[in-house]
């Protein structure tokens, strides 16, 4: 068998999505953002909606998402992405509009914006990266930080009496009538990434059906912030994060 035989289309198991730019990613090796970006780029490409998609970046590590996916982007103030997306979708109802937000952005400073966007049933997609820590600013406690977890602002571990409890915002949002599809996924293995991709595709498809907001949480690793190797971070996530944040669909109004 020669190399040309191997390169046949039916043999291709991986290629860089066309909508992923050639810019060098600033994410740390092992970080989940790179995988989720790739999935989002694949979904937009496969649905053929590049010209109809507007993304809203958060403040946090993924503030630079606009450098990596080849679509029109708006960069929001910290936590406000759902407000931008609300107006964008209402003023351009034929477009696909999504926000991409971390746990500090969505579950702390932006709680009002996400809750009310969900409550109003905005026809947008929200991709929520939950790694239980503030990555960009150097590893401080997030609302989703686990009890006992050490961060730079909980150096002795998160103490419920001092710091409160991990916020299960995804379950909260599922209780709101304006949400259509709420799911929690991860991308730490190939099968998990495939499931996450199906979920993100479903969320984009639902956003075109006028049935309310679709929300995909990705439980993610921040191995730099967690001070673990990429492999150890994946293991730690499986053993600890998934207990607090179990994977699977939480709500689907079309089921």
């Amino acid at each position, binding site marked *: 068998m020669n190399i040309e035989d191997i390169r046949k289309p039916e043999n291709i198991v991986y290629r860089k999505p066309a909508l992923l730019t050639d810019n060098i990613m600033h994410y740390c090796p092992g970080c989940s953002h790179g995988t989720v970006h790739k999935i989002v780029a694949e979904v937009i490409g496969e649905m053929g909606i590049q010209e109809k998609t507007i993304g809203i970046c958060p403040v946090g590590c993924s503030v630079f998402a606009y450098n990596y996916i080849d679509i029109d982007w708006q960069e929001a103030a910290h936590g406000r992405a759902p*407000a*931008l997306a609300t*107006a964008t979708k209402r003023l351009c109802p034929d477009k696909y509009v999504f926000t991409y937000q971390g746990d500090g952005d969505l579950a702390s400073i932006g709680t009002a914006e996400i809750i009310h966007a969900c409550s109003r049933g905005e026809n947008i997609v929200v991709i929520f990266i939950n790694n239980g820590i503030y990555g960009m600013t150097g590893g401080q406690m997030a609302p989703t930080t686990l009890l006992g977890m050490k961060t730079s602002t909980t150096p002795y571990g998160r103490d419920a009496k001092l710091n409160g409890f991990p916020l299960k915002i995804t379950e909260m949002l599922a209780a709101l009538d304006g949400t259509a599809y709420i799911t929690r996924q991860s991308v730490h293995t190939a099968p998990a990434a495939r499931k996450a991709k199906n979920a993100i595709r479903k969320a984009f498809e639902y956003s075109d059906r006028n049935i309310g907001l679709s929300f995909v949480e990705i439980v993610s690793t921040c191995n730099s912030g967690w001070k673990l190797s990429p492999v150890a971070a994946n293991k730690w996530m499986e053993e600890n994060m998934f207990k607090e944040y179990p994977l699977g669909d939480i709500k689907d109004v079309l089921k």
Partner: protein
Amino acid sequence: MAEKVLMKGNEAIAISAIRNGVDGYFGYPITPQSEVMETLMKEKPWETTGMVVLQAESEVSSINMVYGGASCGKKVMTSSSSPGISLMCEGISYMAGAELPCVVVDVMRGGPGLGTIQPSQGDYNQIVKGGGHGDYHNIVIAPASAQDMYDFVDWGFELAFKYRNPVVVLADGVIGQMMEKVEIHPPKPRMTDEEIRTKAPWATVGKPASRERNIITSLSLDSDTQEAFNRKLHAKYSEIQEKEVKFTEYMTEDAEYLFTAFGCSSRICEAAVDMLRAEGIKAGLLRPVTLFPFPYKEISRLASQVKSIMSIELNFGQMVEDVRLGAENKCPVGFYGRQGGNIYTPEEVAEEFRKFNNIK
């Protein structure tokens, strides 16, 4: 003949928005300007022009909805009053940094803090000198009648798109609540998608294969890039100062004494000028219509002509600092103000004028 309708200043804002092809209004209730959103909701423009009207969960959210809408090249606006405007200042700074056009109406009430719900001009420094973080300017236009409220929406969008910059209509509780005759102009249609693509090629309307992706952002981590951008912003502000100053003069031609006042205070000062003129005192009034850019040159010119200038404001001395800069020490500059929702009468202004100028 154009139609004339009796309406409140706040209602004029709403009716003007619908008739001037505004695409979206996003707001949150606060006295004394809630009639803006109430009028819009009653008029249901989404059934006629297609204008989107949405009550947000907070002023923070409304201004960020405005950011999102403006990013799409749409004519979008909000309105609020002083405490609500404070909450919007973060968003306004981001919009100045992202060079986005929008119109924000501030119907000022008494402060600081929760303050009063009565009229004030206490937000002059906040709106004219900044408000949010960073080195930026709003374009600030100050209406003095319900007609101005109607006209300044369209003028505001013209300036906002010309310079890709937030425009603040700095009104006050008097102008918002007062009912006056307003001349209604023929309606203008909303911009078509094609017009937006031509007028706002930077807008995020979906990326076709034919162009690079559009990115609306105010972020740059590189010092030199940020400094170069800020130089560009300041060149824009200099151009605005050079080209867009607007003011009105009342009886200044032979004036020996000058009042400066904006918004509702200018209406009261006109009456005070008439009273003083009846006594044989040659008083006049300069009303800055644009507060940024400010009519420094015109004040300088008049400062060479008059014996004194007195700034009359519903605060304890904010615009007067700009008047002093304009007067360049050519004549004494005095001040009189009231606060808390108290409003001077023309008699009170004339009396304070006599005291300041030692006229018995």
